[in-house]
């Protein structure tokens, strides 16, 4: 099985090379994206078949001469290959239509299949060298894609920050694998699994893994590159970066924390829970302050990664206390959310890309009324908004429900940190879900509803069939995963069993296709029945209304309390919609404040309102480090301009010191 996956990866790499040559052809786009679609679909099917099969490994004589390159396809890798394959297939299908808006295809087409190859390779790597090689391939290919529109303002800066953070994450993972390899230096994952590091080493390795993989996934405070880089890339690449690459980073963390490190410790659960909760709430608060559609979606990725890490933290905490069934529930909730998020985030980025292609605008304050001009895109985007806001009967609600059930399972854990952290995370999860719904009411309401605010919004046209097909396929998947959640849970069972030693009860045999996380007396949820009830009630209401009520309808101007104003500037903008929430939360978290300058009476100049916002994490965390690096480089810069005598003096001094050290060490 693993051999076929490796063949797919090699084909993708070949397609990347070919993309460099065919980029200028008129059908080059179709070749590259069509080929990616085909290969991703094959890889997806392969992964589905290997989910329940036994792990298969292969060792190739590449890379380091004494290690070779190990590859392995076990249930965890198979699940993440499904996520990668699904996201890649969707993005490739979308790009078949969207790609025609690309002005410089030679900057995108060669790197896109390479990026896909990197994503797949990380998941199947079974030793540290191939893992890090694939990780860097993934980072570099996506950096090239981020820089593909380098002439647009801000994109070069985004690429710069991205490459720094990507290198930082690679460095942290390198140190982590170095610690796990131990003094013997065995980089194969099998050797790491068999070794039992001391608690200190294991703790340090887990922290490094959290920093390295977490920075790629976007946990606070290492998230700063995400809202810069994801919007800068073309839309299908943004969908891949948000929906798939962050999940591959989560895969890295899960592989290290659950598989390579062995038994978790309680404090690791506390740290991951804390990080997850803070990330979730801060991500959505940042998103609420944004009015650029793609930056808003990027910040929401940060929030959802936080939710995933809350589930992972619960699994670690329960595992440390010897409760494998509870750990299975926590891990299932986290992995279900991995799947859900990759589906609806891709859908939302496809929609934002469609809007950008149709109007040229990303700023929602220049849009409006798109539901009339782009009805199909609007419908698919609405399904995505409802799914990410965790509304039943769609899939976002199921993973949130499972996480809450995991929180409720064991209130009697002995560690005090967990006793306080778990209820706090319940509150933070609930708060982030409610704020996410608020944010998507704002995003959809300002961009798609209302009246058009600019001419480009008034003349937008619907996008092409391939993009629409990709969006509708993912929207249908959101609904299906919401009403048949038992299928997904049973597919996850072998993965969870391999990592925690237990699994959730089999869902497919439960009456009426409900899901029962622990036992039916305790709690259950039936997405299918809720969906059918809603449909039946709505249909019954329509029948009764049409039978007994008046069916007359008349169009007229809007009521607007008797003072209708046809100018679209009287509508709410994104900033005005978020003003109550900005006032409640923003004043505390972001030190937001507004200054109003009113001209004196009789003066005809306009009044101005200015909103001030300070990014706390950037000011506290990144700016001092950047400043320190700058000052250090200024000091070291003097070394460039010394005389020849000084350089000789340096060499002489170094030689003397080394000889002295050698003498003293004897």
């Amino acid at each position: 099985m693993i051999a076929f996956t490796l063949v797919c990866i090699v084909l993708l790499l070949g397609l990347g090379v070919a993309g460099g040559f065919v980029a200028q052809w008129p059908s080059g786009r179709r070749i590259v994206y069509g080929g990616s679609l085909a290969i991703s679909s094959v890889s997806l099917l392969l992964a589905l078949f290997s989910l329940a099969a036994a792990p298969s490994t292969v060792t190739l004589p590449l890379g380091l001469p004494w290690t070779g390159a190990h590859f392995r396809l076990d249930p965890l890798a198979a699940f993440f290959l499904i996520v990668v394959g699904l996201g890649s297939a969707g993005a490739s299908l979308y790009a078949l239509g969207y790609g025609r808006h690309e002005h410089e295809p030679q900057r995108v087409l060669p790197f896109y299949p390479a990026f896909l190859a990197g994503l797949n390779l990380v998941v199947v790597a079974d030793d540290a060298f191939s893992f890090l090689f694939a990780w860097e391939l993934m980072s570099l290919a996506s950096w090239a894609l981020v820089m593909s529109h380098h002439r647009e303002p801000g994109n070069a800066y985004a690429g710069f920050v991205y490459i720094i953070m990507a290198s930082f994450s690679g460095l942290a993972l390198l140190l982590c694998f170095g610690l796990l390899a131990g003094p013997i230096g065995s980089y194969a994952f099998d050797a790491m699994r068999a070794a039992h590091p001391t608690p200190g080493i294991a703790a340090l390795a887990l922290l490094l893994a959290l920093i390295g993989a977490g920075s790629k996934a976007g946990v606070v405070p290492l998230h700063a590159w995400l809202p810069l880089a994801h919007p800068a890339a073309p839309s299908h690449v943004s969908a891949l970066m948000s929906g798939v690459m962050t999940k591959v980073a989560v895969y890295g963390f899960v592989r290290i924390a659950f598989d390579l490190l062995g038994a978790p410790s309680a404090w690791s659960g506390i740290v991951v829970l804390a990080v997850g909760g803070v990330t979730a709430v801060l991500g959505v608060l940042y998103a609420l302050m944004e009015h650029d559609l793609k930056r808003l979606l990027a910040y929401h990725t940060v929030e959802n990664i936080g939710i995933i890490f809350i589930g992972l933290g619960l699994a670690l905490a329960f595992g440390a206390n010897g409760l494998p069934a509870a750990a299975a529930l926590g891990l299932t909730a986290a992995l279900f959310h991995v799947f859900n998020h990759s589906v609806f985030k891709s859908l939302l980025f496809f929609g934002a890309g469609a809007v950008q292609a149709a109007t040229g605008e990303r700023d929602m304050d220049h849009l409006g009324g798109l539901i009339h001009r782009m009805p199909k895109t609007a419908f698919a985007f609405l399904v995505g908004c409802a799914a990410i806001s965790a509304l039943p009967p769609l899939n976002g609600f199921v993973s949130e429900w499972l996480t809450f059930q995991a929180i409720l399972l064991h209130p009697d854990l002995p560690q005090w940190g967990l006793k306080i952290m778990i209820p706090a995370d319940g509150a933070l999860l609930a708060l982030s879900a409610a704020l996410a719904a608020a944010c998507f009411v704002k995003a959809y309401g300002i961009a798609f509803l209302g009246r058009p605010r600019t001419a480009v919004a008034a003349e937008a046209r619907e996008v092409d069939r391939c993009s629409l097909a990709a969006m509708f396929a993912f929207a249908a998947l959101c609904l299906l995963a919401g009403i048949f959640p038992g299928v997904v849970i049973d597919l996850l069972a072998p993965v969870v069993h391999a990592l925690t030693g237990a699994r959730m009860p089999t869902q497919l045999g439960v009456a009426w296709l409900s899901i029962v996380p622990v036992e039916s007396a305790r709690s259950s949820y039936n997405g299918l029945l809720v969906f059918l009830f809603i449909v039946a009630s709505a249909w019954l209401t329509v029948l009764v209304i049409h039978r007994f009520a008046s069916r007359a309808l008349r169009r007229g101007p809007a009521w607007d309390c008797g003072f209708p104003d046809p100018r679209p500037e009287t509508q709410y903008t994104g900033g005005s919609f978020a003003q109550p929430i900005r006032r409640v939360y923003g004043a505390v978290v972001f030190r937001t404040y507004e200054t109003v300058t009113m001209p004196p009476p009789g003066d005809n100049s306009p009044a101005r309102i200015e909103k001030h916002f300070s990014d706390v994490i950037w000011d506290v965390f990144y700016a001092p480090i950047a400043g320190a690096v700058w000052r250090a480089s200024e000091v070291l810069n003097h070394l460039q301009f010394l005389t020849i005598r000084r350089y000789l003096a340096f060499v002489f001094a170094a030689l003397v010191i080394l000889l002295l050290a050698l003498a003293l060490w004897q």
Partner: protein
Amino acid sequence: MPHGYGFDIAHMLAGGLVLVSFMMLYQDRLYALINMLALHALVLALSVAWQAHIQGAPHDYITAAIALGFKAIAVPWALRRMVFRLGIHREIENVVSIGLTMLAGIALVALSMMVMLPVTAHADPIAREDIALALSVVLIGLLMMVTRRNAVSQVVGFLSLENGVNLAATGAQGMPMVVEISVAFSILIAFIVIGIFLFRIRERFDTVDLEALDAFRGERR
């Protein structure tokens, strides 16, 4: 674990005291704050009386009567008169917003639980949780003193802190009456002194806002 009614009602009254402390954090008008103080003392009196009932310690009934008559009726009445005669603002200026203050209150409750419950692991189960809740009331009283700018609200915070100490003492089965009466007397004297000083300050500086008073300090920085 089978709970007797005594256990439950004692907990309920201690929890009610914490609830009223939170309600005091929430107020932003002076008269409402003073009413909450009266309610705080009333709940304390009920709690002490219940403890007297289940412990069979009749001298605690006197403590309850002192709490009721003195702290629930006399002190709030005197405070209301003082606010009226001082003519000070009827709104309380906060240093930190109410939402953040309540969040800090929750963190303080978690902290007092985290500290008190393991320490008293071998003590009487009724007393353990009541002492943890009493420590929360003390900490929330201190929080109120720290996050309010108005002098009268600081006095209210101080009095609620003392109520928490009282709850802890009666829950621990027996603070001798001598200690109780002397503590009550010292509170009374402190209260009278504070009242006199507030009037003098008001006469001199025309305000009792502590931020403004800070400007009149002797040494300049």
